């Protein structure tokens, strides 16, 4: 029996030969290509297509951010370049391309040049595991979720490289803040993901979506209250991971100028900038995929709508929430950032995991069914208790903000 890759390669060879003949390119070169080269070429083609498509996302997001912020702030935002300012990001990109390529003389030149690519590559590589629609995912691998966690952590490496190589105190400050922040928030984020894995036993993103395809009640977010809280923790940790307000300390303009990319300009700066927006999109996409059913329609009767619409719709909704937060909230201080992670998110995550584990165990051992016969199912009990828990948490959150002292 032939290996599936062999079969695929033969197919590709045949298609290429046909194309060569039709286009009158002369010669039968594809037939002679070795297997490895064909695979390599195919991968390159796929990668180019994927990166081009993905690189378009930040361009859209930048425009969206500018428009959203403008409407939040009683402004119009960009209106001049193209209709409704649609082309302004392209114009910005072209401007950045034409700028002088500045490398500070006292910097570590090699590292300085390398850093943007590390950040850029790490954030774009994750796209491979996200399933945008039912039939396709670039890398449909069983360790997809794990790959996401692993590769997205590489971003912090690039940021530290940038901060260190710039040889500027502000950059170093930003890089160290970024390192502390991203590494810390990786933990609650990972624990939130772990809950899903506990419930389903798979790391394959496509399988995770298929498990939620029945409708909105099947979304992991609404499976049980622990996952609901988990979804929130995931999303907030993700906001911290991608350094957006209120957690944008690594590039807090008013404190440390621009953080790790203070010394960057031109297209290198654009790489950081694009990576930042790509990141915001990617964490939103993962959140949508993990907790909100990915490309699956929320109601079965809507399943005729193409999956990519749902996928993009859910992702953009989360991106919008990120922007909403950014244009509403002030920035937290670094000690508050850390205490939020270690004193609140982490314990809550542990309780979540425990709760999710108990529920999973009840289901598996069918104790839940027996209990259900007597009282209510475990899930129903937890949903009933849930509003009270939320109210308690909400009361804690508002504690200390009530008295607006009117001095007089």
């Amino acid at each position, binding site marked *: 029996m032939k290996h599936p890759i062999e079969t695929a390669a033969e197919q590709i060879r045949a298609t290429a030969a046909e194309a060569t003949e039709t286009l009158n390119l002369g010669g039968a070169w594809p037939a002679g290509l070795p297997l490895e080269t064909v695979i390599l070429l195919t991968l390159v083609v796929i990668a180019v297509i994927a990166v081009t498509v993905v690189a378009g996302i930040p361009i859209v997001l930048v425009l969206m951010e500018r428009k959203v912020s403008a409407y939040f*702030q009683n402004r119009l935002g960009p209106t001049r370049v193209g209709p409704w300012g649609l082309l302004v990001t392209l114009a910005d990109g072209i401007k950045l391309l034409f700028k002088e390529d500045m490398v500070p003389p006292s910097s570590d030149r090699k590292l300085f040049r390398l850093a943007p690519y590390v950040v850029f590559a790490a954030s774009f590589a994750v796209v491979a595991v996200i399933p945008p629609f039912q039939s396709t995912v670039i890398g449909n691998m069983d360790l997809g979720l794990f790959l996401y966690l692993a590769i997205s952590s590489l971003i912090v490496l690039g940021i530290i490289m940038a901060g260190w190589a710039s040889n500027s105190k502000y950059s170093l400050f930003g890089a160290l803040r970024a390192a502390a922040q991203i590494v810390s928030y990786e933990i609650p984020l990972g624990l939130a993901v772990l809950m899903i894995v506990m419930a389903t036993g798979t790391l394959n993103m496509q399988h995770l979506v298929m498990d939620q395809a029945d409708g909105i009640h099947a979304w992991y977010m609404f499976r049980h209250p622990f996952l609901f809280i988990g979804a929130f923790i995931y999303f907030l940790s993700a906001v911290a991971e991608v350094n957006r307000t*209120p957690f944008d300390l690594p590039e*807090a303009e008013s404190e440390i100028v621009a953080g790790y990319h203070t010394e960057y300009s031109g297209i290198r700066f654009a790489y950081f900038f694009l990576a930042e927006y790509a990141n915001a999109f990617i964490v939103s996409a993962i959140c949508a995929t993990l907790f909100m059913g990915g490309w699956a329609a929320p109601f079965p009767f809507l399943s005729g709508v193409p999956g990519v619409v749902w996928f993009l719709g859910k992702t953009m909704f989360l991106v919008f929430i990120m922007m909403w937060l950014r244009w*509403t909230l002030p920035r937290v201080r*670094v000690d508050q950032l850390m205490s939020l992670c270690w004193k609140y998110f982490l314990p809550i995550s542990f309780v979540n995991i425990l709760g999710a584990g108990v529920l999973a165990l009840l289901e598996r051992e069918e104790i839940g069914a027996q209990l259900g016969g007597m009282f209510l199912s475990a899930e129903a009990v937890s949903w009933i208790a849930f509003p009270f828990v939320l109210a308690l948490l909400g009361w804690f959150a508002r504690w200390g903000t009530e008295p607006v002292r009117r001095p007089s």
Partner: protein
Amino acid sequence: MSANGKPQTIEKLVDAFGGAVLHTGEALGEWSAVVALDSIHAALQFLASDSELAYEHLSDLTAVDLSQLNRAEPGLDGARYAVVYHLYSPQNETRLRVKTPVTDENPTAPTVSDIWAAAGWAEREVYDMFGIAFENHPDLRRILMPDNFTSHPLRKDYPTKGLGERAAFNFETSASNLVGKSDSTDRGEDAIESETMVLNIGPQHPATHGTLHLEVELDGERIVRATPHLGYLHTGFEKLAEAMHWNQWIVVTDRMNYLSPLSNNFGYVLAVEKLIGVEIPKRAQYIRVALAELARIADYMVWLGTHALDIGAFTAFLYAFQQREKAYEIFEACAGARLTISYTRVGGLFYDAPESFEPMMRAFVKEFTDEALPEIEKLLSRNRIWIDRTQGVGVISAEEAVSYGLTGPCLRGSGVRRDLRKTEPYSSYEEFEFDVPVGASGDTYDRYLVRLEELRQSCRIITQALDNMPDGPVNVEDHKLRFADKSHVYKTPDHTHPYDPTQPYGSIEGLIHHFKVNMDGHGVPVPAGEAYCATESPNGELGFYIVSDGSGTPYRVRVRPPSFYNYQSLPRLLEGHMMSDVVTALGSLNVIAGELDR
């Protein structure tokens, strides 16, 4: 006031120091005393600590070069300089001016920074500008001029145009001098192996909103030490005044606190009017009050916007600037300019307010109090992050705030109820009803709340001013003081000015009046004398100490800039805080570089 007409202060001072009090006198309602140099420290200590006098507040400390003064100052014979202390006693609500003679041969005076913390920077400025060294001063360095500057610019023998420093300016050496400004505290011998990092925040930095330079030493995120460096925007306003006519310098005052230029115009002309002894028409007073409160709103809007921006709330910034824009439209309607409006004149206003003034103001106040302010407050006041970022940050106790010479909202945030509009009402402020809000804990959040409440009170004052706005002229009817109407001066009446049908083609008198007020050697006739006039500007006590020799130009103008004294407390506010709190504390002081450096 005791039997022989002398206030208790003077009597007690004379009783205690006898022959050392060289002269006492009263002019324009201000008492002053000249104390011999060797007893000045003891005398000031006595004034500050005596329980009945309690001059806890050093309003201002400055000096005057007497070498070209055409009259003999009693008690200051033979002295080249007079160091001038303006004291204020909150307990008795009295002011006192104390002077001490300093000779040219030995230009030294004892420091009073041990009595009032406020004197620290003020003495540095006197040292910088006059070359008077203060003995035992903990940190006597130049403050406004660069360290390698050799002259003392406010001495009378220093020419206004300088000694060619500008032409000889070398960016390379000057820049390295500025960056490497030595600091006062000893870093110890282990500086090389130090665990801390020195970070220069500014002079070009997104959060300094101007040209402030703060050198902070950091241990990780924690601040070990913060040293402000001043002078990047020093423009020699006080020196310029000595070569400008009385009305000309109004234009310069615009450039001091450029967020509320009218408050500066207002304070300066009030001081000149006090010196002349003229009462301006009620209508002008009311328009000045209304616009000063509008200027306060515009100023606070920039403060609120940038303060929020520094803490990361971007949207509040744009909401605030929108309101400021509307306030500026009113200024534009009145004065024709938006930022540097120079609307006041000695003896009144440049023009009467336009007809659209009242409806514009009313519309602004209504929208501001009903919509804009609640909207901004909704974003911040009960915001968990905002509260966490501002509560307990930059705390200063009431005693310390007084000692540091804090004024305005920064002082009231610490719970000291002191507002010059109440304690020493000027320009008919006594006819307005408003409250003075105070904070409780003296932290950034309290200063924020105090300012927000003051915005509401300002709106109240504006409404009252509009309701009771009297009719009549906006200038005194004295042609030696006021500018002649243009239709009295020029042949063609133009339509932008109140047209006087009795003078359709101008008149020779109008031309003469115009000439007399404007020309060199004539000008506004200000009698010889001195006056200190303080107003409650948005940042606090904005004082003008003016010495006149009766000629067409001031002999000496000293500005008591509230930002200068407020900013001095920053290292104290930052003690034990973190890097992110630098911008919080700085924002809550609302330091304006133009006013700080003058």
